[in-house]
C-alpha cells in the first residue's frame, strides 16, 4: 500500500520505518511532532486533540496524493493522534520514502506544513490554571 493515512489514539513511532521501507527507495524522511513542556515560559500539563474525523482523513488523503504525485514517492505515512497527550508524547508522525534524499526531505516538510494548515484537527493547551485553544485568536 502506497499511503497510510490514519487518526489514532496512540502513535507507535517504532513501526513507521517498516511502513515506509521500499526496494526502490534510498531515502526515508520522518517528522514526529511531540508535546513540549513549555510554551512561552508556561508549563504545559497536556494537549487535548479533537478532530472532525471524516473530513480530516479526506484532507490527509489529499495531502498524501499531492506529495506522491509531486515528488514521485514510493510510500507516504500521515498519522495523527487524538485525545489527551502528555509531555514528550508523539502527536503526529509523517514520512516520505523516495529514490533520493532531496525528494523525501522536501515532501516530508510539505506533509507536516500542509497538515497544520488544512486538516481539521484542533488542540487545546492545558496549563495549571487554564486551557487555551491554540491559534484560535489573532
Amino acid at each position, binding site marked *: 500500500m502506497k499511503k497510510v493515512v490514519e487518526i489514532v489514539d496512540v502513535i507507535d513511532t517504532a513501526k513507521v520505518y517498516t511502513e515506509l521501507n521500499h526496494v526502490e527507495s534510498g531515502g526515508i524522511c520522518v517528522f514526529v511532532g511531540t508535546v513540549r513542556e513549555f510554551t512561552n515560559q508556561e508549563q504545559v500539563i497536556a494537549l487535548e486533540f479533537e478532530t472532525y474525523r471524516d473530513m480530516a482523513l479526506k484532507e490527509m488523503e489529499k495531502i498524501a496524493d499531492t506529495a506522491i504525485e509531486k515528488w514521485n514517492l514510493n510510500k507516504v505515512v500521515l498519522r*495523527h493522534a487524538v485525545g489527551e497527550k502528555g509531555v514528550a508524547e508523539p502527536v503526529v508522525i509523517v514520512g516520505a520514502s523516495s529514490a533520493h534524499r532531496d525528494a523525501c526531505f522536501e515532501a516530508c516538510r510539505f506533509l507536516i506544513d500542509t497538515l497544520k494548515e488544512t486538516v481539521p484537527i*484542533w488542540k487545546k493547551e492545558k496549563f495549571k490554571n487554564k486551557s487555551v485553544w491554540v*491559534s484560535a485568536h489573532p
Partner: protein
Amino acid sequence: MNVLFFGIAKDIVGSSEILFSDEEAKPATVAALKKDLIKNYPEFLKLKTLAVAVNSEYANDDVTLSGNDEIAIIPPVSGG
C-alpha cells in the same frame, strides 16, 4: 439541516451539533450561515478565521446549502 461544531466553535455555541428543523428559516448559502452564526454568537468575530465545510469539504461563501448536507463550522485548525 445539521451543523457540527468543533474546537472553540463548540465552546462558543455550547454544543457540538445544532439541528435546524424544517420549519425554521434555514440559511441558503455558506455566507448566510456565517452571518446568522455571528449574529447569534458575536464571539465568532474574534476568531482568526472561520471556515465552513459542506459534506466534509471546505466550502466557499457562495456554496448553497440543502437540507441533506452535513455542515461543519471549522475554527482555525491547530493539528500537529
